[in-house]
């Protein structure tokens, strides 16, 4: 038997026996997550299954973030269903404004390396940043996790993606993530796990690793597991348990030269329609959006502030900013970032998912062009099928906001 990939290692521990790629197995689940898009249906299915309380209330998380605060009475009622469920069962609730679920799970130490974490949100793959096997499921699968503490799955084959060289100044984790999606394609990792490693990753903070793992689902990956080389966490962890064996076997091995990477942009309406920024210089924009579970962290707001310090958003352009959590917002308030961005003309939105998923808070108009730090630019994604969305890093979005068009941000950096 050959050595194990990271997915095989983690899933073997949770299956209670050695499992290998393509095996069907039942595993023990460590934690479960729902948002206000998925929790109401999950709670309904859980009740129909005969469920009273989740198998482990302390590790069952409900986050009100997708339409938060409630834009109408119908959604307010859905939020109440979540609050009542948490109060009745002891499940953990994060209410309006506390933040985006994926930010909260990591910020609040709700997920640890080597765990099996199931979330009813496709970007649950973000926790691969710290070596958790974390994957998105639908509401009924999540209800089944709450009922049984288990799920069934097929152990995925793994693609190994190595980013060689160091990325250049002005190139960010988001550029690397978009390049990765462009290289593998929209369905390039469907049914598979991706291990991401290489010299470019080693110096990256947990925040940056989250940005990269987050986009795993944009290539269809079941899990996006970043090797722990250089990973720093505020507690001790077993790096060996989240690293592959030297003789692990991969279905594909792919390399990207990080040192040659330019800032990247994904063109509408596909996250994998990735090009070098140079191809899009001069593209006029109407809306700039910085936030989401990809790029709403303090580091991202700092990147935007470096561009916007002492400048103004171009006339006719709307810049919206949403911190990924209340903690991020508070830190940005304390260190002056909030003032810098507001002075430049930014409008701050509550911490949440609203604009990215088209629920509320900044739906673009017909024919408008948005440049956004989000992970998806599907038709209608931001709530209007007649608008188009370009995906980019916080630095590129901030620079576009200043100039009213896509520009090479190095021209604005002192």
């Amino acid at each position, binding site marked *: 038997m050959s050595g194990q990939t990271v997915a095989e290692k983690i899933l073997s521990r949770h299956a209670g026996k050695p499992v290998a790629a393509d095996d*069907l*197995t*039942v595993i023990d689940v460590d934690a479960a997550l729902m948002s*206000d*898009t*998925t929790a*109401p*249906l999950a709670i*309904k*299915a859980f009740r*129909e*299954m*005969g469920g009273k309380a989740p198998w482990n209330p302390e590790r069952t998380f409900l986050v009100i973030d*997708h*339409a938060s605060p409630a834009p109408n009475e*119908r*959604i307010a009622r*859905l939020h109440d269903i979540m609050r009542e469920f948490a109060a009745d069962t002891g499940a953990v609730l994060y209410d309006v404004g506390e933040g985006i679920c994926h930010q909260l799970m990591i910020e609040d130490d709700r997920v640890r390396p080597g765990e099996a974490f199931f*979330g*009813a*949100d*496709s970007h*649950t793959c973000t926790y691969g940043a710290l070596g958790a096997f974390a994957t*998105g*499921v*639908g*509401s*009924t*699968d999540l*209800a*089944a996790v709450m*009922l*049984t503490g*288990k*799920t*069934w799955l*097929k152990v995925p084959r793994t693609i190994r993606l190595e980013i060689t060289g160091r990325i250049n100044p002005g190139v960010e984790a988001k550029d690397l993530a978009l390049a990765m999606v462009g290289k593998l394609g*929209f*369905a390039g990792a*469907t*049914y598979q796990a991706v291990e991401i490693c290489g010299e470019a990753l080693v110096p990256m903070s947990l925040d940056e690793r989250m940005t990269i793992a987050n986009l795993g*689902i944009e290539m*269809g990956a*079941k899990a996006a597991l970043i090797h722990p080389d250089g990973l720093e966490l505020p507690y001790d962890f077993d790096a060996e348990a989240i690293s592959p064996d030297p003789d692990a076997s991969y279905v594909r091995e792919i390399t990207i030269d990080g040192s040659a990477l330019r800032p990247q942009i994904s063109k509408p309406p*596909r996250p994998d329609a990735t090009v070098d920024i140079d191809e899009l210089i001069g593209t006029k924009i109407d809306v700039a959006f910085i936030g989401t579970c990809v790029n709403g962290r303090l580091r991202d707001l700092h990147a935007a502030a470096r561009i916007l310090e002492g400048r103004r958003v171009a006339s006719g352009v709307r810049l919206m900013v949403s911190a990924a959590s209340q903690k991020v917002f508070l830190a940005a308030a304390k260190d002056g970032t909030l003032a810098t961005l507001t002075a430049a003309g930014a409008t701050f939105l509550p911490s949440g998912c609203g604009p990215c*998923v*088209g*629920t*509320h808070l900044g739906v673009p108009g017909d024919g408008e062009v948005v440049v956004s730090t989000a992970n*998806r630019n*599907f*038709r*209608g*994604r931001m*709530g209007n*099928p007649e608008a188009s969305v370009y995906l980019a890093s916080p630095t590129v979005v901030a620079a576009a906001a200043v100039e009213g068009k896509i520009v090479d941000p190095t021209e604005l950096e002192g």
Partner: protein
Amino acid sequence: MESKFTGRAHVYGDDIDTDRIIAGKYTKTLNLQDLADHVLEDLDIDFRSKLVKGDVLVAGTNFGCGSSREQAPLALKVAGVSAVVAKYFARIFFRNAINIGLPVLEVPDLEADSGDELEIDLKAGVVKNLTKNADYKASAMPQVMIDILDQGGLVAYLKKNGTYDASAL
């Protein structure tokens, strides 16, 4: 669940994401008819009016990519789609469809045009294009998925079995 039925094909292309199946702005509801009213509207605004209960949705590769929203297969099912046949599916959508009792068949070489009459045989895993008089074999599903679909979905499956049985995979 009926294991053999016929329906008229509505054929669309590759990479149809869950946002186009049901937009995020419509997902926040427990009234499933609201979902059905907006199904596929950003792909084809006329789909809803063309759809007759029992029709079959046919798509290319990577159907249902993107969000984990179970509202996507629910919208299709409640609108009256009897099955989705695609070259292949995005993983979460495929699981969600089975879990809510919407038959999904992966048929890599299916040839069909909109309006063709299809016969779906779930037990045999065969899609027959009655208009073109051709048979196509669907990829095999794990036994657990066959069992879940057979019982009409995961709620019924777990009500009956209580939990997952590793020996029944």
